């Protein structure tokens, strides 16, 4: 997709656990399953490593969407990490919604190491959603703007 000056290019941060989702993203890559370049992946050992603070920080710094990917429930490399992540994110997303960051801008998805297709599909859907929502105006730190 060629770059277009006027097109909205969302900033999207994807936190991926090392064991399942990061490997799933690798598989999407080696299978050449494309998704928009707007998605940038940060590797974490487990979805439970993602502090709500990181997500708030992303929105503060101008992210338009944040997605957290982990192992499927029951398959966490550390047994229980994704359960903690799920509970934390439920609360956080609800709070963000209250603050005016629409539910569509945040997402939790379970992607296993074998699900390259799902990873790519998820990212395509998510970017599509963020594009439809437009730029995030809430929570941004005005001092970050030019």
């Amino acid at each position, binding site marked *: *997709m*060629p*770059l277009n000056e006027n097109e909205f290019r969302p*900033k999207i*941060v994807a936190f991926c656990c090392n*064991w*399942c989702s*990061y*490997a799933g*993203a*690798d*598989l*999407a*890559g*080696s299978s*050449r*399953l*494309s*998704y928009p*370049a707007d998605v*940038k*992946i*940060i*590797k*974490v*050992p*487990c979805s*439970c*490593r*993602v*502090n*709500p*603070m*990181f997500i708030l*920080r*992303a929105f503060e*710094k*101008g*992210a338009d969407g944040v997605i957290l990917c982990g*192992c499927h429930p*029951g*398959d*966490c*490399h*550390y*047994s*229980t*990490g994704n359960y*903690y992540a799920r509970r*934390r994110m439920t609360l956080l997303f609800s709070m963000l919604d209250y603050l005016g960051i629409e539910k569509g801008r945040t997402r939790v998805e379970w992607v*296993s*190491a*074998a*699900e390259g297709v799902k990873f*790519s599909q998820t990212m395509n859907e998510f970017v599509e959603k963020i594009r439809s929502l437009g730029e995030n105006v809430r929570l941004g730190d005005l001092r970050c703007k030019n």
Partner: protein
Amino acid sequence: MQRIGVFVCHCGSNIAATVDVKKVVEVVSKEPGVCHAEDYPYMCSEAGQMKILEAVKEKNLSGVVVCSCSPRMHEATFRKAAERAGLNPYMVEIANIREHCSWIHKDMEEATEKAVILARAAIAKVNLNTPLKAGESRVTKRALVIGGGIAGIQTALDIADAGYEVDIVEKTPSIGGRMSQLDKTFPTLDCSACILTPKMVEAAAHEKINIYTYSEVDKVTGFVGDFTVDIRKKARSVNSDKCTGCGVCQEKCPSKKSLNEFNRGLNTRSAIYTPFAQAIPNVPVIDRDACIKFKTGKCGVCEKVCQAGAIDYNQQDEIITEKYGAIVVATGFDTIKLDNYDEYAYNQSKDVITSLELERIMNAAGPTKGHLERLSDGKAPKEMVFIQCVGSRCSDTRGKSYCSKICCMYTAKHAMLIRDKYPDVNVTVFYIDVRTPGKNFDEFYRRAVEEYGVNYVKGQVGKVAPLPNGKLLVQGSDLLDNKQILKEADMVVLATAIEPEASVRKIATMLTASIDTNNFLTEAHPKLRPVESPTAGVFLSGVCQGPKDIPETVAQAGAAAVKAIGLLAKDKLTTNPCTAKPDELLCNGCSQCANVCPYGAITYENKEVNDHGIRETRRVAQVNSALCQGCGACTVTCPSGAMDLQGFSNRQIIAEVDAICR
């Protein structure tokens, strides 16, 4: 501030064709902390690694960022290179600009922009990296093999031959697995039992191998080199030490109505039983659900007839706890249930059978003593139809999307054996494709056609209709002739898809080994680490990883054994240094971190601290870095922000977030 060197790999054209590597070098060289940046065609090559070595020395670098393939590929390579240059290996970070960038984007400008951002994130992280030192943990020199089929037996034999103790845990009363149910094996037509039994005997007799049959894994804790496993030895109700295996109890048992699992439920067995004649151990078990003694309290015939006094109705399940350095999963497969495929009338007619059922029918020890006959009326069939891909290659919700791999070959085998033994029986095979990659495989299939006159019809079957005269009307396509065929058959055999044994999901969860949507265990790398699970110390053997035939299974079993041996041969393992670390001054002693830790790695102790000049004794968290696996659950739970994860610290991750959102 670090002194960082950035190395951008072309990966031949894998990266360079989509990412303007020169541009990346140009842009990132202006990033704070970066004092060296260059690109190179293959960073993973020796010459590429030398670039890192030279730059570290010349520019006195304190940190390295390599923009290349996934860290899952070459992080270890580059860390070793840094170490050779005298740098702490944990001062290296990888920006994944291949799998996460060049391979999925087409537009160069866009991909280059993203590569720069990923590099910036890695640079921002390295700026906050600190040298880490890996600890050491011990290795228990004993392996556990879960599953006692040909995969498990072969793995156990290979590990044991290398001089290490091995335990096999098998959930049924005997080792042998699916292979023991097969009659003949392709493409040589060896008798399955004839080649399997010696292996079973060898395993049972091996001084280093200990077999737990009728047993299941209950619980797994620990980690690579140091697993602790609870094995549940189910009550056999027969004392293995006393039993002589004479078989009188089975003859005399009055309860003979239980479905014989070994014969796929095609006939019945007694309540006290050994699954098959060559069973190892040759010690029966009492099926308590079927046993009259257990159901009503009356009977006790087996106890009366057992001269060895081996029957023990009071036996209880026993839990054995053992330590292992390595665990091999070899749980095997089963055929899928055919309830979603009633158009083939499997549930409506006894004469529609699965291929595995046909194996039992063809076997001399099977329900028909090896005579090919209809299960409905015992008559010899004259027309047989085989249907391929039943439940395989189905991307709908009913079946499995994958090819089960073994069906084309075993169907050719069945067809050939039937034509050989019963030349008056006509055999028709409905196929979509005949897939025969393998040594002597296509020759084998062609022999079925050319020498044995098996009629192969290209096309799937749409319906099997039982007829009032007891025959089966098979309605199928002949695509090459563009016809719909109606064929009366006496028996229909379904090449039923295979799927991983149902228990594998529970076992994978206990081992925290990943599993795919079809319940096959995931390998650490699909090509380069095919017998290792992503979970360190867990190895994969046989069909639990993906469909395969016997030679492939045996080969993989050997490979899994070698990997396990490689681990057991080490005295110590270096542990992951990315462990949690509390800031004692911030810790308020609330214990929440200890509650979420899955490894029990966090304890509390009363410790004297110096808080800005105030000396006092406080209850503070302590992390046992040998136990901590570095998941980070505690770091988020900690209400005071005292807990942090080395290598993935709050500041490092935030720096990455900032770099991406900049």
